[in-house]
């Protein structure tokens, strides 16, 4: 009696994991967010979103414990910014990525798993540059 039930569960599990697999292979999915003062779109490819979520949001989100990092930048604010401010913020992100100054050394001593790999830095840089080009209309 229990056998068909388990078979059904396994079939469903395989079906959904296969869908996940196909979704990943289909290329980066984008979350589009409308900017506050323009019709331009701020898009986060899933891979970029993943890096930001795993390695940046711990300190740069509204509920972060560190006041300094919270005040310096919150990723969620990007989507509410006016275009001019968004450019300024992304330019700063670009500088930080170029300098390799984030996450800070002190944080990495405690949580070495937060270090950005070369591939992640490259993905973020590409995203920052393409977003800047889009917002600046260049």
């Amino acid at each position: 009696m229990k056998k068909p039930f388990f078979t059904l569960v396994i079939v469903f599990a395989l079906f959904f994991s296969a869908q996940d697999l196909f979704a990943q292979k289909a290329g980066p999915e984008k979350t589009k967010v409308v900017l506050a003062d323009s019709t331009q779109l701020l898009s986060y490819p899933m891979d970029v979103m993943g890096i930001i979520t795993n390695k940046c949001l711990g300190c740069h989100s509204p509920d972060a414990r560190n006041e300094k990092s919270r005040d310096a930048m919150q990723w969620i604010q990007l989507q509410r910014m006016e275009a001019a401010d968004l450019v300024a913020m992304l330019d700063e992100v670009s500088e930080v990525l170029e300098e390799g100054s984030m996450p800070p050394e002190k944080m990495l001593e405690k949580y070495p798993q937060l270090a950005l790999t070369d591939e992640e830095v490259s993905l973020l840089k590409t995203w920052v540059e393409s977003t800047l080009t889009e917002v600046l209309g260049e």
Partner: protein
Amino acid sequence: MIKKIVLGLIVAMLVLQFVGPSRPTVRSENPGDIMRTTETSLEISGLVRAACYDCHSMETKYPWYGYVAPASWYLFEHIEHGREELNFSMWQELDKRKKLKALKDIQEVMEDNEMPLDAYVDMHPEADLTDDQKEMIITWARELAKGVLKNQ
């Protein structure tokens, strides 16, 4: 003995005047200056010049202690650093995104009362901006940023 010490100090001070870092250059004609390349009111221009230009432009006006080492060294370092961060005289050389970044920085340092530095205001009372004047500079920077974004 005291005479020798005083003499030694005087000689040391004299020697200091000829060594140390070189004075950051001053240039009065700056065709790419922000005040010449943007539509900025005389009032704002006056405020920004009084509060920022000694360290953030090529039009530095050196005070008397800017000619006496070692105090002048401290001053030179500040000016070099200030110009590196933002040089209003070189405005036209910045690309669009760097201009927007600079204008955002101006708004932030005004909002946070970070600039002008307290030490500078102590020696330059004309740089002591009121809250209204800071607000005027913030509004100017914000509006200018919109213009830069639209290529004006």
